[in-house]
């Protein structure tokens, strides 16, 4: 079976780890009462989100210059289409979510200071109403991301345990 390159695997799993950390962080932190702990969580959430945004460009560049390893032979057309569009949607969400996060942070009057070191430029001037709108868009896109991640994972399980064509190995290191 033809696999992704080690570089692509590293990017995939690193981003998976970062997204699966910052997404639940985002879900939890919002409803916490204001405390130093909450401010820390917000900072970490933003640092990880900006890291995902930066890695996105590396990953998109890799993907645009390298075709994905072939899917299993004889896979129904609709499944190929579903795989194609789930991946496209995931790529779209992986850039839109950190971007809307950064935008809402700027609009709500908080600059993003990556790792507490590098102050990113504010994308928009403070505007509370815009900030609230962006907050909803950010949350809504994340609902979409969770649905897409669910599909992504369901497909992995289906290929691994029902179809048994072990497509997952394309994304795991090992011998061909």
């Amino acid at each position, binding site marked *: 079976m033809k696999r992704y390159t080690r570089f692509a695997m590293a990017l995939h799993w690193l981003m998976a780890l970062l997204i699966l950390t910052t997404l639940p962080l985002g879900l939890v932190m919002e409803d916490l009462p*204001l*405390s*130093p702990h909450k*401010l*820390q969580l*917000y*900072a970490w959430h933003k640092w990880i989100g900006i890291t995902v945004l930066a890695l996105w460009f590396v990953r998109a560049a890799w993907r645009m210059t390298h075709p994905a390893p072939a899917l299993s032979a004889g896979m129904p057309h609709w499944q190929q289409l579903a795989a194609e569009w789930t991946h496209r949607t995931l790529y779209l969400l992986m850039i839109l979510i950190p971007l809307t996060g950064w935008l809402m942070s700027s609009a*709500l*009057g*908080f*600059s*993003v*200071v990556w790792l*507490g*070191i590098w102050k990113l430029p504010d994308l928009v001037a403070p505007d509370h109403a815009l900030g609230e709108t962006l907050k909803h868009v950010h949350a809504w896109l994340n609902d979409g991301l969770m649905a897409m991640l669910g599909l992504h994972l369901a497909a992995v399980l289906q290929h691994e345990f029902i179809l048994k064509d072990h497509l997952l190995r394309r994304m795991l290191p090992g011998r061909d």
Partner: protein
Amino acid sequence: MSLLRLCRIRMAAGALLWLTATLAMSAPYVRINTAASSIGFVSTQMNVPTSGHFGRFAAQVRFDPAALVQDSAQVTIALASTDAGNAEATGMLADKDWFDTAHWPEARFVSSSFRELGGNRYAVAGTLTIKGHSVPVTSVFVATPVVGGIRLDGQLPLSRKAFAIGVGQWADTSVVADRVVVVFHLLVQP
């Protein structure tokens, strides 16, 4: 006449003109135009600078760049009018751990001396009292004459811990920094 001498004469004439102009407008600035003035602050949480401002304040200022010894300033800020730049934080500021506005409604600055730093820059030393703590502070500001008055733009850095602002769980300065910078823009008229 040498060029150098000509220059010297022109410089002397210029200095004289400047002196005359200064003397002519040496009436002190005493009336603060609150509508055209603002007092805010920048606090830092997780290394993120965040701006806020004070909605209500009153000031008695006497500022005359030519007679600094006689100058004075008294500024009183209604702390309940503080906007921390974010609704959640603003809502918390009245709490006991922060300003405790029920017991300490005002912050007050009283000057003790003014000093010239050169180039329109001045320093004012004084005492800042918040939450019953009186602490000596110094502010550096720039005085810019404008039509109908003088603008005083400056900063006053302070330690929030010195005033017990943000105690209890907020005492940790690795999240909310100890240093808070008060930023003011005052228009004072004759």
